[in-house]
């Protein structure tokens, strides 16, 4: 049984002001195995974030079934950790309180909360900053808190929606390396949405290329280049060429159609 099963997912947004419907996701079928690092790759507006939100339970598919660990997704829940594009931390809580927020909601005593959160503070390299508020930390540090917060819930899947898009190039590279290290250490299932071919190829062991409007899956590419990945190696470039060709094919098709 796959960790995530998407069966015939269709999502239609009704544009009430213009009185028409917009087909955003058109019959998505996808199986994601446990411990996979899957990158959903596609141009903006292809519905990849919508697909992620459907798995997270933030949005409902118009039709189709979404199963996580064999259970139908109906609402958001702590079995699916989400890392948002913006860190989306509670600004009135310190780093450690943000990371342990899930435990607070469950009524765990403060001493135990902090004890368990410290492990994740260390995991994302924020020791010394545990009592800082989000406004006192950089974007990269806040995003680390966001990742630690999702990991602490020990979810069966982690859903990430372009979490590094707002970071500078240097920090982005660091965070990508750390994320891979965390994934290797903790063996979790990650679904990572991105529009960057390089990012997808650095991170994923499965790249799902999506097409634009309506969103369909163009091809799911297995990509098992050993890590750490050398982005200048011929194998990396072969894969990149293949993925770029898929995307280019798509844009020519769109250009001819219009």
């Amino acid at each position, binding site marked *: 049984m796959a960790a995530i099963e998407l069966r015939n997912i269709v999502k239609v947004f009704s544009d009430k002001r213009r009185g028409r419907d917009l087909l955003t996701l058109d019959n998505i079928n996808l199986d994601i195995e446990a411990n996979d690092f899957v990158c959903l790759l596609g141009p903006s507006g292809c519905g990849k974030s919508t697909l992620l939100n459907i798995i997270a339970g*933030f949005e409902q598919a118009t039709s189709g079934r979404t199963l996580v660990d064999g259970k139908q997704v109906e609402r958001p829940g702590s079995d*699916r950790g989400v890392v*948002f594009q913006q860190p989306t931390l*509670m600004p*009135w809580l310190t780093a450690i309180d943000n990371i342990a927020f899930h435990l*607070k*909601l469950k009524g765990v005593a403060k001493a135990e909360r902090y004890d368990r959160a410290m492990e994740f503070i260390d995991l994302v390299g924020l020791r010394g900053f545990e009592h800082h508020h989000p*406004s*006192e930390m950089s974007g990269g540090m806040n995003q680390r808190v966001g990742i630690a917060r999702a990991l602490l819930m020990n979810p069966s899947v982690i859903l990430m929606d372009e979490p590094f898009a707002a970071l500078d190039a240097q920090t982005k590279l660091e965070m990508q390396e750390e994320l891979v290290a965390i994934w290797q250490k903790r063996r979790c299932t990650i679904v990572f949405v991105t529009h960057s071919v390089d990012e997808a190829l650095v991170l994923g062991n499965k790249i799902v290329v999506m097409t634009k409007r309506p969103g369909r899956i163009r091809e799911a590419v297995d990509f098992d280049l050993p890590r750490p990945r050398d982005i200048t190696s011929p194998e990396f470039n072969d894969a990149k060429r293949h993925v770029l060709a898929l995307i280019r094919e798509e844009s020519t098709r769109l250009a001819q159609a219009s």
Partner: protein
Amino acid sequence: MTSVTDAAPPRPAFRLTRAFHGIERLIVPALLIAGWEAFARSGMLPPALLPAPSAVLHALGDWVFGFDETTQTYSGHWLRDALASALRVFGGFALASLLGILAGVAIGWSRLFEKTLEPTLQMLRPIPPVSWIPLAIIWFGIADKPAIFLVFLGAFFPVLMNSIHGVKTVDHNLVRAGAMMGANQRQMLTDIVLPAALPSIFAGLRIAVGSAWMLTVTAEMVAVKSGLGYVLWDSYYFLRYDIVLAAMISIGLLGYLSDLGLKAIMARTLRWQQTTTVQGRAG
């Protein structure tokens, strides 16, 4: 030519800048008071109609400390009068804050409350609190109650409006993050929406405390026989404009102090919020 890296930041040309810090805010009031004193002493208006600042200060001093009974029956009774007003402000403001926040959060959070409660409240809102005075007097008589009622009316709506706004503008993604971490409806309200709405709620409270002072004084002029507003109106009947002005100054001062107190509570509660103003970092 010196290189760019060697260039020191320009030193302040005026070395007294630091000594001036804090004094600059006194310049305008000092000029105003000096001008007023000179005008009052010039004799262009009879001193009874425009008392000089020195005369007002004299009256205020006697009202507070009772040294020469220039304020007659009020001599030495300032504390009693100020306390009477302050208690009405506090009573009405506390009631308005409690109900304003409760109703505001309910309306902002729940469609049901928004549909059932809000239209009525929004219809009551444009009615000036002062126009309730006749009803307040026949309902509550001449005492503390009509004043507290008026203060409540004046303070309630700013708190209500800002609480509704604060809850409605909570970042949608924070609510999503809460749901992702398993918050139930009650936790969503107490642990996410309420703290996120606090800055806006505090803004409402600060407007409300100003209204509270305004309405206490108004009520005391008409419906109560004690407090700073009563002294002000009573002195007007006896043409004691020095006491009228002393009362105005007292009200201004106490209103300012209440706002400072509220600001201090706000700074403690919202310590997480590091606001950046156009002039740089504040608080």
